[in-house]
């Protein structure tokens, strides 16, 4: 394939610019290979994250010609001829070059109450579940936490709704909550969290997240929309609302309101 110009964004939080490198591209190479080549021969301090190089760990997310992709799964021959532009994910603060500070995601994750199963079905501590019951959840659990969906979500990217009082959990964590809410064994009610902490209502289902998901999870259709319906049913159905009010007045309501978690500061040393 010969030589290709790479324009790579170099810099840190104080600013930066695109720099040009000439790369030698051969058959089958992916963008991450080119980055490694440039690192080894021209710019040993070029920062990028990567681990598995097989689309399984979700570390090497970046924007390739403006498209959010995994560098390890983007073949050079899939890109149009001409120079390739490479820049970090733009929804997160820059650390250096292609590396961004994604610690916010870890803080959001911690807000989600953990899995709590119903008591085991059998004395040996096991449950029985049909494959059909778990298929749906397994789709969500394919997530590799590349955070590309968070990166393209306009609520996070354009409106930066990441800190109180305006927070949106983002598609990744809608999917994580979906995996818990639809887990056949789980017993926790996370609808209050969805509605008032992760603010699911802020998603207006443009499906940008679904489009970039390298695991092809149907984030919007199978995850966010069903969760939105559950929230609507629970909080905005007039009949249920009335029943709940009456129930509250009569003291019939079993579940006392639990305090909702708030986003913690100081991300890096505690997850």
């Amino acid at each position: 394939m010969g030589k290709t110009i790479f324009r790579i964004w170099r810099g840190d939080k104080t600013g930066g610019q695109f720099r040009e490198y000439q790369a030698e591209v051969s058959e089958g190479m992916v963008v991450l290979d080119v980055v490694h080549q440039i690192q080894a021969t021209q710019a040993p301090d070029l920062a990028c994250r990567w681990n598995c190089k097989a689309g399984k760990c979700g570390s090497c997310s970046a924007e390739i010609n403006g498209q959010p992709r995994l560098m390890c799964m983007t073949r050079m021959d899939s890109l149009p001829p001409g120079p390739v532009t490479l820049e970090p994910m733009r929804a997160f603060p820059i650390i250096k070059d292609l590396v961004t500070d994604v610690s916010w995601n870890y803080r959001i994750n911690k807000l989600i109450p953990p899995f709590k199963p119903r008591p085991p079905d059998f004395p040996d501590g096991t449950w029985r579940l049909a494959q059909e019951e778990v298929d749906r959840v397994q789709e969500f659990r394919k997530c590799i936490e590349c955070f590309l969906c968070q990166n393209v979500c306009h609520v996070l990217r354009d409106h930066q709704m990441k800190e109180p009082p305006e927070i949106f959990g983002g598609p990744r964590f809608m999917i994580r909550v979906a995996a818990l809410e639809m887990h056949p064994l789980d017993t926790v009610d996370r609808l209050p969290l969805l509605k008032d902490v992760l603010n699911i209502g802020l998603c207006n289902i443009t499906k940008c997240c679904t489009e970039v998901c390298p695991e092809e999870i149907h984030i919007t259709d199978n995850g966010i929309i069903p969760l939105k319906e559950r929230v609507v049913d629970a909080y905005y159905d007039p009949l249920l609302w009335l029943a709940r009010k009456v129930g509250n007045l009569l003291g019939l309501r079993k579940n006392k309101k639990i305090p909702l978690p708030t986003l913690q500061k100081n991300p890096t040393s505690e997850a």
Partner: protein
Amino acid sequence: MDYPIYEHDVLVIGAGGAGLRAAIEASAMGCRVGLVCKSLLGKAHTVMAEGGIAAALGNVDARDNWEVHFADTMRGGQYLNNWRMAEIHAKEAPERVRELEAWGAVFDRTKDGRILQRHFGGHKYPRLAHVGDRTGLEMIRTLQDHGIHQGIDVHMECTIIRLLKDGDRVVGAFGYYRERGQFVVFHAKAIVLATGGIGKAYKITSNSWEYTGDGHALAYEAGAELVDMEFVQFHPTGMVWPPSVRGILVTEGVRGEGGVLRNALGKRFMFDDIPEAYRNSTADNEEEGFLYVIGEKYQGRDARRPPELLTRDHVARCIVREIREGRGSPHGGVFLELQTFCDWLERRRPGLNKAEYIKKKLPSMYHQFKQLGGIDITKQPMEVGPTVHYIMGGVRVDGDTQMSTVPGLFAAGEVAGGLHGANRLGGNSLSDLLVFGKRAGEYAARFAKEHAAGQLPRDQIEETARWALSFIDHPQGDENPFQVQYDLQETMQNLVGIVRREEDMLRALEALERLRERYRRVRVVGNREYNPGWHTAMDLRNLLIVAEAITRSALERRESRGAQFREDYPNKSEEFGKVNIVVCKGPDGSMRVRREPIPEMPDYLKRVIEQNK
């Protein structure tokens, strides 16, 4: 000394399956736990594990139990295993798997709703609890999402470069954060190493950049012993084309689901070479092997496994033989295909949608080949060849407690040696992480409770900081760290690979000496902030130690057994069947090698092995 100091009872280094499980256990025992990961949390190499977790749950075949699993593990390891670890592993794995389910893991199910188990090489019964071919991801995410609510302090993108000692025992660790390059001190009463393996010592590997033998080298430098380092597992099936993806793993699950290996002549060569120890348990015709895959009987008795599911060391050697003798595929591998099996299955199940069947059974393999190789595995054969995958050897530990020979220093998972002997069975790694991760966490916590914190050694910290900074703008430096690493990988690949000879390995030792010389002249440009050149320079020290340990151990073992094949000693030797090779750092700083007799196995375990012959 103005570095930040974190105080922990137990410090766990490494946050893959073993590290997370250790941290969870130590925390559950009431300890203040620190967890250090070289990458972001949840990205460790465990996510790459595809096949499953080996545990004798007996869900698919009720005849399975710990005794069969134990006997399979020992046979696979050619009886060099630490038998106590193999026993504990086989007994405790089922409980660890059930525990994962209770923490939210969602395994594939049997028809009656239990955890489904699949066949894998060297396991007598279907034993691997799995989630499609992404079991490792399920495991790490489950442990991660459970662990973050246990009050564990997580230090992400932090690399440890030295264990700190006070007299004989470890009392802390010294490292740096990638982001800013600033140093950090951890003061701990006990330390668990869970740093994984050494794949980056080789050119063709399924391992990521992180796998630079950090824990092996840290332990060695701290005075611990390493055992079985000659046993490097070459996974028989890595991708070979295109060049940039060479080495990426093709799960054994492909063969477990009926995948067939063929040479360039189209011949299914695995039937030709079935080792004596496995003759009784291996099919001698295609029909029987395929019936085994779908769990059905052959001529009224249990079908025996297809020869593609023989142990990894054997399959890798057969593939190398085909390639060397000129029957390889166009890009220097052999073919692995699912079409023969699917056509056979279609004849039994008319109307079967073959493409959908493969996609459902092996979703990530389908994607991997489609995206990286431009190959549709539902229609085309894959090209595969051996890739460095795992090291059986590691820190020599006590079987029950996982403590090394250095007080307060524990090891679990790939960095620990012993469980797998001369060859690891697929699926025994994820179970290893859980069983011994838990044990290491538990015994480290006990150690921490029984011992006061030691004194932090200021001189060791300062010395290490000076060493780390010496690379940056080294005035006499003229070597590129990436180039030195590349040359080391080339050396190990060519001279200490699958087929070994004394003369090659002696040359490797000389080459390593020259590389050490060049290492002193490595120069890093740029500053300390997220600088991969600097990180590579520091990791190189570990790779040099590990490469030497592998080479010296392999030289010492003058026989062929398990993962080690010596062309100059092609047979097994009774003498070497009784010893493990152990290396440690001598008082003069040079590497010492010795043979350590394997302790006598108790009678009840001998009986188990006899009954399962």
